[in-house]
C-alpha cells in the first residue's frame, strides 16, 4: 500500500527484526493485513465477504485433504469408499458434510462478494485487474466444484459429468475428439474419475495462488468503499488491524454459525438425493440438475431450443460460457465515472433487476426442462445479456448521478449527524 501515512514496519521483538532483515515476511504480513494497511474507515459488512471466501477455501482445503486419506478414486469402489467415510471412518460423516456444505457456502459468499463488486463498481479503474483475477478465481472454483461433485460416483455425479463434458462435444469438428480426450474414453469411467480427482486436488492450490495475485492487485490502489470516492488523506482511513481484523472476525463468527447450523441440522438440504444411488450408465435420473450454484448458468445453457445458423446445442454452450466471459469486459462496458451504486439512481434500479433476473434463472435452472420454465429462462437469459451489453452502456451515458460527498470523512460524519437528528 502506497499511502504516505501508512505505518512503516518497525519490529518490536529482536527476533522479528532478525527474521525481517533476512526474509521480509513479517513486513509483508504487516503491510498486507496488519496495521500497515490503511483502509477506508467506512466499509460496511458487505466488505466481509472477501475474507469469508478465503476462510471457505481454507475449510475446503483442510477437510478435502483429510477426506482424500480415505477416498478411493476408482469406479468400482469410489461410491463405497464415500459410504465408508460416512459410516466407518472416525468423524468421517462430519468431515464429508463439512466439505460438501463448505462448497455451497463458498459459493454463497463468493456470489455475495461478486454482487458487492457489481453494486459498488469495484471493477472500475484503477481496480480492473482485481476484478479480472477474481473472475479467474471464479472459473477455477467452478471447475473444481464440478470435478469434486463427480468423485462420489453417484447418479448425479455420473450424469453431471456426462452432460458437462458433452458440452465440449457441441463444438463443430473437434468437439467429439476433445470430449473423448477429456474423459479418456467414450463415456465417464475410471479414467475420467481418476483425472478429476487429481485435478480436484490440484486446483484449490492454484486458486490460492491466484488469490494472492488478487490481493496484491487490490493493495496497489487499496480497498474501495461504499461511497466509491478516493481516499484523500489519513483522516479517511483506519489501519486494517485491529479495526478490520475485528470486523472480519465478527463476520466470520456469524458465517460459521450459519455454516454449522446447516452442517449439523440440514446437511443434505443443498444436495440431491439421487447422488446416494451408485452411478449407473444405463439409467438416466428423471431430471438431471447440477449443484444449485450452477443453476443460473444451466438455465442459460438450456434456453436455446431452435437452430439459427448454428445448432441450438452450440448456441446454448456459447451463451453459457459467454455469460461469464462477458463479465471480463464489464470494466469497459460501464463507462460511468461514478463507482458506487448509491449515487447512481438509474443504475441502482437495474442492478436490483439483474439480481432478480439471476435468481429467476437459478430457479429455472433447477426446474425440469418444460414450459413455462423454458420460456422464462429464455426471457431471463436475454435480459441478462441485455443488462450488460445494452442497458449498462446506455445508463452509464445517460444517467445523472447524485452529488458525491467531498470526502469519505464528510460522508461518514454526515450520516452520523443525520442519525442523531
Amino acid at each position, binding site marked *: 500500500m502506497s499511502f504516505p501515512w501508512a505505518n512503516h514496519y518497525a519490529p518490536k521483538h529482536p527476533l522479528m527484526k532478525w527474521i525481517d532483515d533476512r526474509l521480509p515476511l513479517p513486513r509483508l504480513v504487516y503491510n498486507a493485513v496488519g496495521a500497515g494497511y490503511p483502509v477506508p474507515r467506512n466499509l460496511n459488512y458487505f466488505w466481509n465477504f472477501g475474507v469469508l471466501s478465503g476462510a471457505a477455501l481454507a475449510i475446503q482445503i483442510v477437510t478435502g485433504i483429510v477426506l482424500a486419506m480415505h477416498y478411493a478414486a476408482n469406479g468400482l469402489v469410489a461410491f463405497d469408499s464415500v459410504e465408508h467415510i460416512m459410516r466407518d471412518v472416525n468423524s468421517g460423516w462430519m468431515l464429508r458434510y463439512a466439505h460438501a456444505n463448505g462448497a455451497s457456502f463458498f459459493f454463497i459468499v463468493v456470489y455475495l462478494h461478486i454482487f458487492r463488486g457489481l453494486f459498488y463498481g469495484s471493477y472500475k479503474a484503477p481496480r480492473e485487474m482485481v476484478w479480472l483475477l477474481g473472475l479467474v478465481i471464479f472459473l477455477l472454483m467452478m471447475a473444481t466444484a464440478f470435478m469434486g461433485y463427480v468423485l462420489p460416483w453417484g447418479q448425479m455425479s455420473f*450424469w453431471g459429468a*456426462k*452432460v458437462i*463434458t*458433452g*458440452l465440449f*462435444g457441441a463444438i463443430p469438428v473437434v468437439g467429439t475428439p476433445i470430449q*473423448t*480426450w*477429456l474423459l*479418456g*474414453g*467414450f*463415456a465417464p*469411467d475410471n*479414467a475420467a474419475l481418476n*483425472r478429476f480427482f487429481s485435478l480436484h486436488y490440484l486446483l484449490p492450490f492454484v486458486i490460492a495462488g491466484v488469490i494472492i495475485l488478487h490481493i496484491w492487485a487490490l493493495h496497489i490502489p487499496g480497498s474501495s468503499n461504499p461511497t466509491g470516492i478516493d481516499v484523500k488523506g489519513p483522516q479517511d482511513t483506519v489501519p486494517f488491524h485491529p479495526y478490520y481484523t475485528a470486523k472480519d472476525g465478527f463476520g466470520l463468527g456469524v458465517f460459521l454459525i450459519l455454516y454449522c447450523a446447516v452442517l449439523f441440522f440440514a446437511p443434505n438440504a443443498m444436495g440431491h438425493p439421487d447422488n446416494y444411488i451408485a452411478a449407473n*450408465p*444405463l*439409467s*438416466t*435420473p*428423471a*431430471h*438431471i440438475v447440477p449443484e444449485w450454484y450452477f443453476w443460473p448458468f444451466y438455465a442459460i445453457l*438450456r434456453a*436455446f*431450443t431452435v*437452430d439459427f445458423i448454428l*445448432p*441450438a*446445442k*452450440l448456441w*446454448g454452450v456459447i451463451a453459457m460460457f459467454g455469460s461469464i466471459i462477458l463479465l471480463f469486459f464489464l470494466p469497459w462496458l460501464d463507462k460511468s465515472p461514478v463507482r458506487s451504486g448509491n449515487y447512481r439512481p438509474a443504475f441502482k434500479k437495474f442492478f436490483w433487476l439483474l439480481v432478480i433476473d439471476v435468481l429467476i434463472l437459478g430457479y429455472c435452472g433447477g426446474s425440469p*426442462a*418444460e414450459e413455462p420454465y*423454458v420460456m422464462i429462462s429464455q426471457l431471463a437469459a436475454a435480459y441478462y445479456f441485455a443488462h450488460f451489453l445494452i442497458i449498462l452502456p446506455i445508463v452509464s451515458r445517460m444517467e445523472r448521478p447524485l452529488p458525491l460527498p467531498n470526502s469519505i470523512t464528510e460522508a461518514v460524519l454526515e450520516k452520523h449527524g443525520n442519525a442523531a437528528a
Partner: protein
Amino acid sequence: MATLETTETPGEGAGDGVRRRDFINLAAVSFAGVGAATVLLPLINQMNPSADVLALASIEVDLSAIKEGQAIKTIFRKQPLFVRHLTAAEIAAADKVDPSSLRDPQTLEQRTVDGKKQWLITMGVCTHLGCVPLGAGEGEIKGEFGGYFCPCHGSSYDTAARIRKGPAPKNLEVPKYAFKSDTVVQVG
C-alpha cells in the same frame, strides 16, 4: 571464429544489422521451444483413451427373444445400445414423414439394413448432451412421437429414432452392425 569475435564490437551490427549473438539467441530459444513442445506431447496424449478402453469389443445380440413392439437395452463400448423390434404401425408412422422436413433428414431405410426394416438398432445416447433416452424399457414413456424421449432436456425421437423436437441436433446414432443370421446381429 575467434578472429571474427575480436573484430566485432559487442552490441554493434555487422553491416546488415544482424549480430552473431542474435542468431545464437534465436537458435537456442527455438531449440528450447521445440524441446518443450515435444515434452508437452506425451503429457497431453496420456489423457486420450488408453489401449484397453480402445480395444473395440464387438458384441453379439440375440434377437429371437425380442417380440414385435418390444425393445432391449444392452451395453456396447460402455454405452447403452437400443435394439427395437418395430411394429408395422411404427414403420408406417416413420415412413409417413417427409424426410426433408426433419432436422437431420434420413429415412427409416437409411437407418436400418435392407429387408430388416423392423430392426432399429441405435445407440442409447441422446445427441444433445448424452443422457439415456427413455422408451426402450418396459413401461417407459416414449414421447410424443412414439420413439424415445430424453428426460434431461426434453428431446423427442420418433419411431425411426430421428430427432423431432427438443434441443438435440442429430438422430440417435446407428452403430456399424451386420446380421450373422436371422436372429443374431453383431454390433461393432
